[in-house]
């Protein structure tokens, strides 16, 4: 659990800081190339410059640099980042040298400039290819970590801002897809909703920061108690919903009971006062009949309310 947590935080704060040496090396190379050209050749007159070439090659070099910065900003350092940034660096260098020869005329005796212009390009493309392959492997590993939190499609804008789960909007879209799939394949589909009793009291007694930490811990606890094909989302506040594909009402009831038991035996200690909290969850389970996502969610929600009426108020 600790691992997933730190992974999440690492990914949450991308910055260029750890990549400063990579960028510095690239700028140094570009500078050396420029100096070499200036030492060996003479500046071309304004008349000798082909501006179409300058815009085409210079613009491509600039865009490659933008890609490189975007890549570095969005990734922590590591093997895949090294392959991809090295490849993009080579491509940038090649295009840069290509653009420079528009401004500096080299004597015909010089042949190394061809190597500097055309050599790094295939190397760079090769490096990018290797990088992309490893990126694909990495993506599969990360997807495995996202198991039970993501199904069928990815949309980062629908992720919850607090817990590492998706929110209600993602659930709605998933539910739409899954309902259609279940109907087409004539398989059952069930939902379980879970709500923590008197969660407000935790916020009031220990502060909202503690309530947030508890929600985060609960989301991990619930994930551990689900099967690999299930999807856990946070609907709102302290209410979670589990989408159970290929599951009938009976099994859904059993899963709901298991989740309740898991929450009841969860030994959560507050961060501030280190106090042991005793939590109780309330659940509702139901199977989808012929209805759309919105009606199903509403029915599930009303199921929780009926449960609530049966239990005496915790005064």
């Amino acid at each position, binding site marked *: 659990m600790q691992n997933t947590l730190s992974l999440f935080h690492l990914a949450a704060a991308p910055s260029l800081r750890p990549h400063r040496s990579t960028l510095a090396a690239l700028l140094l190379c570009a500078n050396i190339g420029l100096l070499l050209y200036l030492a060996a050749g003479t500046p071309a007159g304004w008349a000798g410059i082909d501006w179409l070439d300058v815009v085409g090659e210079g613009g491509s070099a600039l865009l490659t640099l933008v890609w490189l910065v975007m890549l570095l900003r969005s990734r922590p350092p590591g093997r895949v980042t090294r392959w991809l940034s090295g490849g993009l660096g080579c491509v940038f260098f090649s295009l840069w040298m290509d653009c420079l020869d528009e401004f500096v005329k080299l004597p015909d005796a010089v042949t190394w400039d061809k190597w500097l212009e055309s050599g790094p390009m295939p190397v760079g493309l090769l490096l990018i290819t290797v990088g992309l392959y490893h990126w694909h492997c990495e993506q599969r590993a990360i997807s495995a970590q996202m198991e039970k939190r993501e199904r069928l499609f990815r949309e980062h804008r629908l992720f919850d*801002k*607090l817990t590492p789960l998706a*929110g*209600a*909007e993602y659930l709605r879209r998933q539910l739409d897809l899954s309902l259609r799939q279940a109907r087409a394949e004539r398989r059952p589909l069930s939902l379980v909703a879970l*709500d923590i009793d008197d969660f*407000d009291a935790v*916020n*009031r007694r220990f502060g*909202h*920061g503690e309530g*947030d930490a508890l929600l985060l811990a609960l989301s991990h606890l619930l994930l551990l108690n689900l099967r690999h094909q299930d999807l856990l989302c946070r*609907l*709102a*506040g*302290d*209410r979670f919903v589990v989408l159970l594909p290929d599951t009938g009402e009976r099994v859904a009831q059993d899963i709901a009971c298991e989740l309740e038991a898991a929450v009841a035996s969860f030994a959560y200690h507050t961060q501030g006062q280190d106090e042991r909290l005793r939590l109780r969850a309330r659940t509702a389970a139901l199977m989808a009949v012929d209805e759309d996502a919105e009606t199903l*969610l509403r029915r599930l*929600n*009303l199921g929780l*309310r009926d449960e*609530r009426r049966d239990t005496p*108020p*915790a*005064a």
Partner: protein
Amino acid sequence: MAPPRAPAASWYECDEAFIPALHQPAVAIDLALSRGHSLRAMLRGTGMTEDALRAGRLLVSPRQYLALLDNLERLMDAPDTGFLLGQRLLPGQYGVHSQALRGAADLLEALERLVAARALLTPLLAPRLHLDARHACLYWVDACGCGDQRRLLVESAMTAVVAMARALTGRRLPWQFHLAHPQPRHVEQYWVHLGDDLRFDCRMDRIGIAREHLHQPLPDHAALAGPAACAASRAQIAALPGEAGFLDRVHEYLCAHSGLPLNLERVAEAFGTSPATFKRKLHKHGTTFQAQFDAARTHVALHLYEREGLGNEAVAARLSFSDTTNFRRSFRRWTGCAPSELRRLLRGG
């Protein structure tokens, strides 16, 4: 005939700085900070500075508080922002005002104290309490021009009262919710933070409950400290530029005199200003006389239908319409639907 004078003619306007920044604005800032946003981003465009905020005695205007909430909503970019804010607002940590709420004998007294101290406890959206033999309802009026932020403010105001009632009574009460806006995409936030008994598209924002729930003695009732805190709270409110927002006062006046043939000139006279100044003030708060007048008459009409059980003819007469056809046409213009439709909506049919 001279128009009746506006009672208690003191009000605050949207550009008067009187809200202590360390009260509710600080709650909004803390919420943003707890989600990893920077203080600088929160204060951008509000005219508040970090130094003045840290010095502790900064006062902000309703307009600045509104700009702060605008930043909050944009930075949080989540459907639960209003609800998270509301959970943190009441009874809050606002000195004697919070003590007065906490020390109330019953929920009704707490709500009355909330309404009395609304200038500081909910400066943007003013709560008003309506009581009859069996029902109580609390509805909210725009105090000084909240514009596009109305939904966020309503969500947070309702959540604040529901959370306060829950904290004071220790129970989850069966509130009924009427909301002016159409059902939003994130209706699940309403289910979880407010309750299931929701009606949208109602042309007014109010919560209702059976009166018996308001008279249960509260466990934390402070028989001695409660009234003392309440008196201190009232004294502080009296020292403000006004006890209610400008639009709140206008609404109050228009509702109280809805039977009279009112127009801009007469109301301006009652408020002791020239029609031009009155019009300018309304404009400053993002509204017009006609909009306020229509909203007030809708409000009175619904009250007469629901609480006094009057029919179309009686309501038309009370609002000084010459005939029902005329009244029904006007009602449709104010609300977009016929009286019977809206009454059915409010009943939840």
